[in-house]
Structure formats: structure tokens, C-alpha cells
């Protein structure tokens, strides 16, 4: 039963690859996304209906939380995808920056990979065994690579190559880390289930500390590469800026969370073995470094999609800081994961709309979005404030919770750095936002550029496809709602999940 959310999209992927006609395939995509979401909803309501599959698969609150995010996000994105594919697929389009012609990955393969992506990410959330977890995460890399290479041209290919190689190296390191964990398990207590979370936690006291520590470090670095913690984040901006908007949304909103989940799994084992402070300290350092690097690359960033990508790095850093601090920080980090996924996905989708309207990724060449694409422009402003942690959006509460953890733990260095870096990012991003959203004059670059011909004058209002604005609207509305009111079941789930991370 618990296999259902994993197998359903996998099967659908195969079908989607076979189907010839576009329309049924698109219907299938949305339908599967909807069913998956419904399944997950049911799973939230009555977990008892989904008995664990041996020691390998089960859904605890931590997994349920991330599964919920992923499924919801995928549903919204699939709706957006319909509109996107109707515009893009099969067409041979000219590259806005260099002008050469390129065509896109066949829609069948693309859809199949999308569904496979969902399936593998679901597997990540339900697996209870470090081996299975590793397999699942490896699988996400495999299916997401073609997604990034949707536009078949040299930049996206380069991005894909970097993504594959870096993540594979990371994954290899993670595999070694998994072996180390296995090595930490005392002999004789063998059997294939000895690497399940539950067995490890209950026998945490007998684990060999040195190997456990080494394993933790390797897993942290390996999965951290996937999660995008600086300085392991290098693939992230390239992949996000070259991938199509909905893929960037899924990468930022769902994939990074999966890697984060894997790190939380090993952390909980360490905590059980009394290594909690050890792990949290490293995470804290990683978090601050990530925030700093992201801030440095956001300031003066000329490409708005890359800026969003670095903002993802920053927010992964915030998550790490929250976990590193513990206490209220755990709650804050988990809640922040939710908010960041919703907001960042919405922003990437909006970035897709802006790219479609202006045909450039340089923020300097985008002006007066409020006038030209009013809905997207307004949502763009709202999304920026949401991602920058302004109320009434959810990120405000989660970042506040993390800051509170820092203050009450009396670690003033963290307080200062955290606030300073958040302020720096704000100052860096707000200028870009204002320049892009406000103003009204057609920018010189657009007027002069060859593409200005087939686009209306930059001030003229432009039609916005319904699906293209509906999806981000829903996401922003959700995170806005979370800022105003956190529903009880979500609050409970987050609280239980924070409990799993263990006190210490």
C-alpha cells in the first residue's frame, strides 16, 4: 500500500513515454499528480491505512512532511506544465541571448522524466533504510538530468554535465559514508535490516563512534552537495538558470528538501548516539557559510534566475542554521522548508513568465513589469517579499523562530551574522526587484535588440496565460496563509518531526 505513491508515477512514466499524442499525455500528467496528491492527503489523514513495508519503507512524520510538500508542489507545477508545454514543446526557438536556433527534448521523454522524478522523490521520503535512501537519491539525479537538458543547446548541456558530475561525486561520497555507517555497526548483528533507521537508533549506543562520525561527515558532504550547501553548491546556479522554469521550481522546491531530509535522517542517528552537538555544530557552520556565499553572489547579480538560485543556497543555509541551533530552531527550520519550497517554486514559475514576456534573463533589461505584465509583476513583488521573510508570509515566522533560537541560546555571533547576512541579501535583492517591477519606459536594450521586433513595445500591456499566473498565485496564497495561520495538523506534524531529530 505504501508502495502505491511510488509505483503509480513510475508506471505512469512508462506509459507517458509510450503514448504518442500530446493531449492524453498531458491529461495523464495532471491526473497522476492529482491522484498522488490525493493519496498523500489520505495518508496524512489515516496513516494506519498505509502499513510499513517490512523494515524498508514507512512514513514517519518527518517523511510525511516532506512528501506533502513534494506532492503539493508537483500538482501545482504539473498544471503549469500543461500551459508551458503547449507553448514550448516541439517548437524550434531562437536563443534569446546568443540567437542560435535550438529545439527541445521530446515531450514524451520530458513528461516521463517528470513523473519519474516524482516517483523517486516519493521513494526518498518513504525509505527507512540508508541503502534504499541512497538508491532513491541517486535515482533522482538520474531522472532529473534530462529535465535540466530540456532546451538542447550548449549552455543547458554544460549545466547538465556539471550537475551530473558534481552530484555523482557527491553521491559516491555518500555511498562511502553509508558503507562507513555499516562499518560502524558491530559485527554479528548483521542481516539486511541492520541499516534501517529504527535498528540503528535503538542500537545507537553500540555503534563505533569513530566510524559513525566519519560516516556522518561523508554523508553530510555527499548529500550536502545535492542540497546545495556552500561551498558544495556550485552546480545549483547553472542548473537552475538553464533548466525550464517548472524544473527549476521542482529542483529548488522539492529536490533540495529531499537531500535535506537525508541529512536529517543521519543526524537523528547521531543524536541517538549522543553525537547531536557534534552534528549540529557542523551544520551551523555550513549554514552560515552558505548564507555568506549566497549573499556575496546575490549582491550585484545580473541574472534574475541565478539570483533566485543563490537565494535557494541562502535558504538551505538558513535551514542548516536552524537545525544547527536546535530547540525552536528545529521547528523553524522544518517550517521554513515548507515556506521556502512554496515561495521559491512560485518565484521560478514567475521568472518563467517574465522570461517569456521579455526574452531575457538579465534583470537590467527588464523594466516596468507592473505595467506590462501586471499580474506577474504584482506576484513578483509579493514573492520577493515572501522570500525575504516579510510578513504576512510564512517565512517571517520561520526565520523569526530560528533567530529566537539563536537569541535564547545566547550565541550572539550567530545572531549578528544571521541578521547581517539577511539584511545584506535584502539590500541586494530589493534593488533588482524595484528595477524589474517598477518603472515604465521601454529599456534601451529591448528596443534595440533584434527580438524587439516580434515583441510588443515594453510598455504595452501583454496578455498573460491563465495557467501561467494561476499556479504561482496558489503557491503564494498558501505561504501567505501559513504566515497568518498554521493549521493544527501541520503544526503537530512539524512538532513530531522536530521530536524525531532528538533532543541533545
Amino acid at each position, binding site marked *: 500500500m505504501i508502495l502505491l505513491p511510488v509505483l503509480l508515477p513510475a508506471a505512469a512514466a512508462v506509459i507517458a513515454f509510450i503514448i504518442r499524442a500530446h493531449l492524453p499525455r498531458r491529461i495523464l500528467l495532471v491526473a497522476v499528480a492529482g491522484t498522488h496528491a490525493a493519496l498523500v492527503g489520505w495518508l496524512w489523514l489515516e496513516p494506519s491505512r498505509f502499513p510499513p513495508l517490512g523494515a524498508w519503507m514507512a512514513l514517519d512524520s518527518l517523511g510525511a512532511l516532506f512528501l506533502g510538500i513534494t506532492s503539493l508542489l508537483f500538482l501545482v507545477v504539473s498544471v503549469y506544465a500543461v500551459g508551458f508545454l503547449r507553448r514550448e514543446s516541439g517548437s524550434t526557438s531562437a536563443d534569446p541571448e546568443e540567437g542560435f536556433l535550438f529545439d527541445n527534448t521530446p515531450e514524451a521523454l520530458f513528461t516521463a522524466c517528470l513523473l519519474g522524478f516524482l516517483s523517486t522523490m516519493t521513494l526518498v521520503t518513504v525509505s527507512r533504510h540508508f541503502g534504499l535512501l541512497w538508491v532513491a537519491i541517486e535515482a533522482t539525479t538520474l531522472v532529473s538530468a534530462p529535465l535540466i537538458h530540456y532546451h538542447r543547446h550548449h549552455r543547458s548541456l554544460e549545466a547538465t554535465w556539471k550537475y551530473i*558530475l*558534481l552530484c555523482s561525486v557527491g553521491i559516491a561520497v555518500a555511498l562511502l559514508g553509508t558503507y562507513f555507517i555499516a562499518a560502524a555497526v558491530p559485527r554479528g548483528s548483521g542481516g539486511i535490516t541492520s541499516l534501517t533507521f529504527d535498528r540503528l537508533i535503538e542500537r545507537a549506543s553500540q555503534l563505533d563512534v569513530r566510524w559513525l562520525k566519519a560516516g556522518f561527515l561523508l554523508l553530510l558532504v555527499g548529500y550536502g552537495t545535492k542540497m546545495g550547501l556552500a*561551498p558544495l553548491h556550485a552546480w545549483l546556479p547553472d542548473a537552475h538558470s538553464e533548466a525550464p522554469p517548472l524544473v527549476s521550481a521542482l529542483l529548488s522546491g522539492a529536490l533540495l528538501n529531499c537531500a535535506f531530509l537525508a541529512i536529517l535522517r543521519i543526524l537523528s542517528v547521531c543524536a541517538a548516539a549522543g553525537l547531536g552537538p557534534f552534528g549540529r555544530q557542523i551544520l551551523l557552520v555550513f549554514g552560515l557559510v552558505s548564507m555568506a556565499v549566497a549573499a556575496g553572489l546575490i549582491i550585484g547579480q545580473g541574472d534574475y534566475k541565478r539570483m533566485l538560485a543563490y537565494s535557494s543556497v541562502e535558504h538551505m543555509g538558513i535551514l542548516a542554521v536552524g537545525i544547527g541551533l536546535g530547540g525552536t530552531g528545529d521547528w523553524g527550520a522544518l517550517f521554513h522548508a515548507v515556506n521556502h519550497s512554496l515561495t521559491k517554486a512560485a518565484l521560478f514559475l514567475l521568472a518563467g513568465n517574465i522570461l517569456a514576456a521579455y526574452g531575457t534573463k538579465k534583470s537590467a533589461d527588464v523594466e516596468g513589469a507592473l505595467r506590462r505584465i501586471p499580474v506577474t509583476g504584482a506576484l513578483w513583488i509579493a514573492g520577493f517579499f515572501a522570500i525575504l521573510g516579510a*510578513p504576512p508570509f510564512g517565512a517571517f515566522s520561520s526565520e523569526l523562530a530560528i533567530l529566537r533560537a539563536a537569541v535564547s541560546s545566547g550565541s550572539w555571533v550567530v545572531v549578528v551574522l544571521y*541578521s547581517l547576512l539577511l539584511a545584506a541579501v535584502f*539590500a541586494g535583492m530589493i534593488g533588482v526587484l524595484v528595477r524589474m517591477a*517598477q*518603472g515604465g519606459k521601454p529599456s534601451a536594450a529591448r528596443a534595440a535588440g533584434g527580438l524587439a521586433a516580434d515583441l510588443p513595445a515594453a510598455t504595452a500591456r501583454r496578455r498573460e496565460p491563465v495557467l501561467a499566473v494561476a499556479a504561482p498565485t496558489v503557491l503564494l496564497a498558501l505561504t501567505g496563509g501559513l504566515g497568518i495561520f498554521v493549521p493544527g495538523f501541520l503544526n503537530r506534524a512539524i512538532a513530531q518531526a522536530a521530536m524525531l531529530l532528538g533532543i541533545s
Partner: protein
Amino acid sequence: MLLLLLPLVAMLLVGLVTASLASAPRAARAVGAIGTCAASAGGLGVTIAALVLGDSSSLSLPWNAAIGASFAVAFDPLTGFFLLPIYGLSAVCAVFGAGYLSHAHHGRGVAAHWLFYSLLVSSMALVVLARNAVLFLVAWEIMSISSWQLVTFEHEREETRQAGITYLVATQIGTAFLLVMFLLLGAGGSAGAAGSLDFANLGASGPAASAAFLLALVGFGTKAGIVPLHIWLPEAHPAAPSHVSALMSGVMIKTGIYGIVRVLSFIGTPPLWWGWTLVSIGAVSGVMGVLFALSQHDIKRLLAYHSVENIGIICLGLGVGLLGMSFGSTTVAFLGFAGALLHVLNHALFKGLLFMGAGAASHAAGTREIDRLGGLLRRMPLTGAAFLVGAAAISGLPPLNGFISELLIFLGAYNAAAAGPAAQAAAAGIVVAALALIGGLAVACFTKAFGISFLGEPRTPAAAAAVEAGPSMTVPVIILAAACAAIGLLGSVAVFLLAPLAGAVARVGPADAAVIMAGTSPGLVKVTIGAGALAALVAGLAILRAVLLSRSSVRSAGTWDCGYTHPDARMQYTSSSFAQPLTGMFHFPLATHRRWTPISALFPVKAEFSSHTPDLFAQGLFRPAFAGIGALLSRLRWLQHGRLQLYVLYVAATLLVLLIWKLG
């Protein structure tokens, strides 16, 4: 309590309705202006009622326990006192805005404007009503963002966008300090580190209290605009539509003062240096503010700097109050706080009046440059007369309201100087000197602002062609002028009404308060008598003059120009030349740039002179600091050089470092 929240809800509904009317600009204009005005008026009524009935109701709904948030609101005299100007001024400004925006072209902009206007007003009200740190911060942020939207109403203009950025960044950094401060107070409070952040639980003592005080000073000071954190004011206020500038300068920056006063109530008796700090901040802000104002020739920029000056005066009052508290001399504390609070109200009145008057004038003459105006009084008699009242009031002259509040602060300072311990008296001496200097310079500045732009002959055809604005733009200023005069003439009544609140803030028992009032009110009554006498004398002398003139012939001629044959409007003294002696004297902080073409030939054909006074702190302090931090952080860009091998090397190196660090 629900009744008190009703205006907020109504306001938000109006905003949403207006926003939904985006496609019908005319309807949006009407609904927005009338709706917001009505809602604010209703709020004003409710607030007055609550104050009269001594309402102290409160309401607390569970919200988000995990971060200590709860929807806790309550009403007390302090809240009520700040609600008065918020609702009152926003009602008046809405009326003015209806007229001011009648020329705005794009309908969507107008609808959005009224949406954010209603958001701003309701969030300000929520700020003073909130009794939970998180709720307060949320309201605070919404206030900042909506006011940013209002400031950038005309965002086609580059400088407007820049002003918006400056404002947003400044206010956001200020908020960061507030976050830390509230969390600090929460950690030191009764509920402990993980408890709720209701105001009732906040507290701190010892160094934590001092840290919280300083954080509050920076955080709230940024909003209030104390030097050197004021840099956003002179940018944002000129950029905004006039009624928005009026609202922001009149009441929004006062929420910073509210915050300081409120936070002072969380933490115990202040040590001496807090009072000294506020006094020095007040003195510096006041003098710097008025000096920079003196050197401006954009009238709205000038007014913006005067907001800095008046915040300085308020800080002087608060400082006197703190000094009194730390020395246990209740009179001083009482008078200081009373003066500061009353000045909050007064400044809301006359600064709102001045901004709207200046807006009407520059609207009519098509420029904000004082040197291009002139002779507007006879063209716009009502606006001009109202502006004159405001100018006299902000200069702290009797019989207007500015004098009353400054009188109270002076009284507190003189009391301290005459009878307090030396440490207190010395600070009081600074207060006296600063207030007097500020007053004198303010007179110079506003005689300039009014005299150059409203008197004499028009300097440009545009100014000559100016005509009086419509009733929707004259009625508001007249109302405010009347309010200024009323508080000035009935100062004793105002202070009597204010006494309980001032006593509470100064932590003076009702008995002591009664004694203090018994000592203070006779003087205020005498002031009222003096004001009446002044009015009577003016009337009498005017009649006498009329009688005498009726008996002799009255002719009119040109102004006496010492025999010059061709007088010309451009020969009049300009604002820059009027202020030049003072700006020259204070050249050190002002650093006015002057550019002119020296007169060489015997019969020079043409010569030019222009002067510009940049903001010392923006230029000398913040710009370099931000540039430095930016440069430092963007050093990290080389990390992203695009070479895959080195990216892999990062991974390897990180792994190695961690292994050596943790296992080596």
C-alpha cells in the same frame, strides 16, 4: 475592544473594494477617498469615546504558539493618544488626496494607492494596539511595505524608485534590530526563552535592559528619523505624493516614538546615561535637522528635515523625562514626558498642514523649488494663510500649539536646572540651549520658507499663473490650522487632559500628578490669558489703525528700491541668499557645494550661481559603509568561476577539512 477593531476591518474592506475597482478609475477614486476618510473618522470617534470612558479592554486570541505569537490587542491611554493623530490625520489626508490625485492618469495606480493607503492606516493603528511582539512586528512590517508602495506612487521617475529602495533598506535594517530587541526582552521576560512574546511577559534587567534600550533606540530611531539614521526621510518625503508625505511625516514616524515609550515601560528605572543619551540624540537631531532644512531649497525636502528636527525635540523631552525618572524627581519626569507626548500630537498637526500646503503650492506652481515660487499668498489666500499658521506653530511661537509643548519641555528642563542634582542640571542646560537654538533657527527657516515662496512677487510665470486649489485641498489645511490654534489657545485644557497619561508614562502616582498639575496649570492658564490678551490687543490696534488711516489718504506705489530704475522680480532675495549667512556660519556640518561663474567683464552678460547641500551622513557614513560591505561580500564571486574540476576540488577539500577537523 471589538468596537475598537471595527475601524480597522472597515478600512481593510474599503481597500479591497477599491482594489477591485481597478478597472474603473473614477469609481476607485471616489470610493477610496470617501471610504478611507469615513473609516478614519469613525475610528477617531471610537477612540475619543474609549478615552473618555477610560476604556481598558483587551482581547487575546491564540495564534502561533511555536513562535510565541498571539493576537493580543488592548487599549490604554497611551494607545488611545497615538490613535488620535493616526485616525485624525489620515481622515484629513484622504480628503486632500482625493483632490491631489484627481490628475493622476493611470487608474490601476490610483486603486492600488488607496488599497495601500488603507493598509498603512490600519497597520499603524494595529501597531499601537498590539500587545504581542510578533503581532507588533507583523503590523510594523506591513506599515513599512505599504508606505513604500505609497512613496513610489509615481515610480516612472528614477529618483522616486531610488528613494523607495533607500527607504525599504533603511526600514528593514531597523526592523532587524527590533526583532533582536523583542527576542531579548522575551528571553529575559517572565515567560522564559520559549514562552509567549506577549508584552505582559517581556522584561529585562541589568546589561540586558541596556542592550534592549540601545537596540530599541536604533530600531525605532530609524523609523522616527533620529540623526544619523534619518537619511531615508529627505529622500522619501519629496518623492511621495504630498498627502502621503503628510501622513508619513505626521504620524508614521511617530510610531517609532511610541515604540520607544512602550519599550521603556518594560524595563526598570533607567540609569542616568539613558537620559543623557536621549538628550544628546535629541540635541544633535534637532540642531542638525534644522540646519540641513535651512540649507535646502526644495520645500518638501526642507519639511522632511524639519521632521528630523521635531523628532529631536521629542527626544529632548523624553530625555528630560528619563533624567527625572532616574533621579526620582517626579516633576521633571512628568513635564518632560508630557511635553514630548504633546509635541507628538502637535507635530502631527502642523507638519501635516505644512506638507499639504506645500503640496498644494508646488502643485499649483509646478515646482518644489522655493526659488521659483513667490507671491503665492495673494493667488492662493487660504492655503497661504494656513501655511503661515503652520509655520508660526512649528517655530514654537505663542499663541500656537508648538509653543505649548516646547514650554512643557522647557519647564521640565528649568526645573531640573534650578533644583536638580548637578548631573541632571547640566543635561537640562544642554536641553535649554538646544531648544532655544532650534527655536531661533526654526524661525529663520520658516520665515524663509513662507516669506520666499508665498510673499513678494512671483519669480516665474508658472508661479504667477498659480490659482487656489479646490476645496478638497483647502479644507484639510484649514481644519489643521484651526486645530493648531485651538491647542495653542487652550493649552491648559490640553495638558489637563494629557496629565493622566503623562503621569502613567513617568510612573508618577495620581496624587503626585495632582500636585504637579496644581503647580503647572496656573501658568498654562496665564499663557492662555496672555494669548487672549494678544488677540484682543491685535484687534484693538488694528481698529485704531483703521480709524487713523480712514482720516488720512492712503496711496500705493512700487516698493522702495533705493532709486533703482528697473525693479524686477528676480532681484528679490532668494531662499539661498536668505539662508546664506547661517549656512556659511555652519559650513562645517553642512558642507554646501557652491558653483558660480565669476563676474569678469565690466558689463557682465550673464552669471550663474547654484548651491547644493548633500546629506553629510548619507554621503560620508552610509554610502561608504554599504559600498564596503558590498565589495567585501562580492569578493566571493570568484568562487563561481565555472571550472568544474575546481568545483569537485571544493567538495574534496571540504571533506578533507571536516575529516581533519573532527577526526584528525
